[in-house]
């Protein structure tokens, strides 16, 4: 009985260790920093090449689209700091002047390059999804 409980404890410890190790390594690949535009644009170079999610507001009148293409260019600001973003793909309907957005992608000297399906915009009005635990407002964009 005693030997058995030791065995069980050792096995569980090994499994837990292995899993947490694995989790830690995959986590460092999988994580993205969630920042407000002004936090990042204070020292943009420090963030070059890191996976980022930027939170801010679309600058009024900044959304441009190359005719007959899905190339977009727009500016996102928060607390006075602005970042210029480029994106190719379909944007959500809610991407409008002034709307609150989260953009996923990477920052470089050329600006913020948004990854595919990386634009998420909040509706300007309050959005109250259906009920408790319901799949209320699953994203306007998603990765699959």
């Amino acid at each position, binding site marked *: 009985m005693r030997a058995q409980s030791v065995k069980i404890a050792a096995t569980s410890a090994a499994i837990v260790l292995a899993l947490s190790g694995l989790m830690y390594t995959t986590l460092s690949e*999988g994580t993205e920093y969630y920042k407000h535009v002004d936090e990042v644009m204070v020292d943009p170079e420090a963030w070059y090449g890191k996976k980022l999610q930027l939170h801010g507001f679309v600058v009024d009148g900044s959304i441009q689209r190359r005719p007959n293409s899905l190339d977009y260019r727009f500016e996102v*600001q928060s607390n006075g700091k602005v970042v210029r973003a480029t994106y190719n793909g379909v944007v959500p309907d809610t991407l*409008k002047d002034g709307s609150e957005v989260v953009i996923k992608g990477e920052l470089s000297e050329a600006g913020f390059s948004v990854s595919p399906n990386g634009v998420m915009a909040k*509706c300007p009005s309050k959005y*109250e999804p259906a009920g408790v635990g319901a799949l209320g*407002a*699953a994203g306007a964009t998603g990765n*699959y």
Partner: protein
Amino acid sequence: MATLGNLLLLASFVACAYAIAASVAGARRRSRRLVESGIGAFYFITALMTVATGVIVHAFVTNNFAIKYVQRYSDSAQPLVYKMTSYWGGLDGSIMFWVWLLSMFGALAIYMNRERQRELIPYVVATISATCMFFLFLMIVHNNPFSTFLAGPAAEGAGLNPLLQNFYMAIHPPALYIGFVAMTIPFAFGLAALITGHLDDSWLRAVRRWTMVGWIFLSFGLVLGMLWAYEELGWGGYWGWDPVENAGLLPWFTATAFLHSVMVQERRGMLRVWNVTLVILTFFLTIFGTFMTRSGIVQSVHAFGEDRELAFLFTIFMVLILTFSFGLVIYRLPLLRARNELDSWVSREAAFLANNWILLFSAFFVLFATMFPTISESLRGERLTVGPPFFNKWMMPIGLILLVLTGIAPLLAWRKTTLSNLVHQFMWPVGIGLATGITLYALGMRVWSAGTAFALCAFVATTIAQEFIRGAHVRRGATGSDIVTSMIGLVSRSRRRYGGYIVHLGIVLMFLGFAGEAFKKEAQVVMQPGEQITVGHFTVRHDALRVTQDAQKQMITGHLSVFDGDKAIGEMRPAKWFFNRRENEPTTEVAIRRGVGEDLYIVLAGYEAAEQSATYTITVNPLVNWIWFGFAIMTLGTILTLLPETAFALAAAKVPAGAATTSMLVIVLFMPAPIQAHSAATGGEAGQTFATPVERSPLWKKLEGEIMCTCGCNSPMNDCPMEPNCHGLETQRAKLAKFLEAGMNEDEVLRAFVADYGHQAVLARPIDEGFNRLAWLFPYLLGIGTAIGVGIVATRWSRRGPGQADTANDVMAPEDSALQTRLDDELRDLD
């Protein structure tokens, strides 16, 4: 009407308190009359909540915009069905809906078990009533669906969010709630068993069946959510690992684990602590899921408002649940000792144990990853997020391992499996699985995950088929009938076992659908009229863009012709609808051409009305429909397992598998949805104005949350449903701007508003000082006071009159022997 509703809620609250007190006292004094009166009180709660539900639905149907909740989630133009489903369209109503469902389920469970589980019933009543009481408390102090506008009724409602005006949205939340709510019943029985110490395995019977009911509804809710996301949101997928979705998944994992490990306890008397723990965890996770998505502790872009007070109330409730139930588990540990030990790792119980670990790990993992942003923020002060790829990376192998176990576990023997037995059982399935894998590889499939999934699906399907065929052969030998008859006989004799296999078959089919995801093709394209594009073997041509209008909305519709190779196979009409008064939140009307092999899925992503050009996202989704079909099979299996003996005997005797066909039809009827872009007469150009929110300072935003809008909507300024055309809001904003320009701080502004208005009613909540603090505390004091009162009454009642206890003794006598024999028989039949 609203007053009546309020009264009903209050009466239910009081009745809950009485039900708890009477049941606990009755159980302790062994007074049948008190216990009966507790049960009666619970039926009364059910009646009250049903009337309350009637009242709110009536208010919705008659457009009673004096009630805030009705005003916010309905309008007079809404179709009748959506007026009724608006009941659960928002938080307040969904809590009420929850209580109503809980009271219905509770009444049903109590009615069905009141004779069989006589010892447990009082505590079951008490536990369910306590849960009801919490939610009623929540409603009364915080989220009252019956609260009205002070300044008289509003002229028109804000309308239910158009995204929710959808067939699946009408039935998806109820399904999920039923799943959540049904999980309360096993918890109540578990708790009752712990309290009374009647921890022999008889309580498991009731618990297992109710968990299964909850489980199938939870699954139904999750699948409906997937369907809704797939058909309504238009991103071509169905599962995005959103916190809200994950919240529904967590209890599903633990409930699934329980349904498996309960068999180990029934057969071998092991894992008893574990099973009780799983029951408690499942219930806890339903509450936690609600808390997680509703209180705003997990932020998602999908804007769940942050609600500190709600978070606080939920935290208290959760801490209470955990301490109380795990305290009881520890107290009862001596009674929960296992009767057997694990003999061998090559046994069914070991396989179930592995399945449990993996399911529990999945729950833990999903919980961790969902909470990760919150955790990282509190630990490192830096918000890190993990996206769907991270979830997929982990959940894919986990899913595959579970799939393997689905095949292996049922073939292993209890206690120990011999080598020859292993060979006998696994020869065919492994062979066919390998053959499938090799064939797929030879055919050029190079996606390892999907390939493995397909091979494993073949393996599991073979194990199931083998079980059916072997069983039928044995039975044919015994009865001498033909193979089909003996198979039906086999299923009807041990429904639990073969129902389980059918559920597994459904899971296999769903995995086929999940694996098909790997071969998805997608194109995003801008097209002028006459242009075309080829995706997979489909060619799609953009013919025209039409703008039309009806009473509720304006519709922009793309007209597309679809060709398979050169052959025209039809037209598709994806659209965007702009509902009146919600012009800046258009809904996406996806056009889907369904097929057994693949779906062609087209979304109108953008348009230029002037040039008639349109942007489309065109997706070919292979095998998705197998997910829905697999779920239908799964439901069938569960129904089979749950059917009462008599009903099944009847169905099997008269029309073989008739019941099956009917239930199948019912399920299939749910599936097809009218997804068609409507085309009406051509209307004018789209002329829209969009309100553009201006960036404001944080202090401004904070204040907008604290100062009421004066238009009569009785909401804070940032929440006024009348925006952007609100007369009250503009004056308030002008005032606010003036005060802020004068350099006032938050407190000063608030005071200035109060002085200006002459009353604190202009504030969203009273200024936190002196008497006001008392007003703030009052509802809490009331709640705590009631709880203490109930406790005192219960203990006093249970102490009084030892003389009466004697007369009650024979009433609460142990179960009679006939019942005991029947139970034993049933337990023996379980497999």
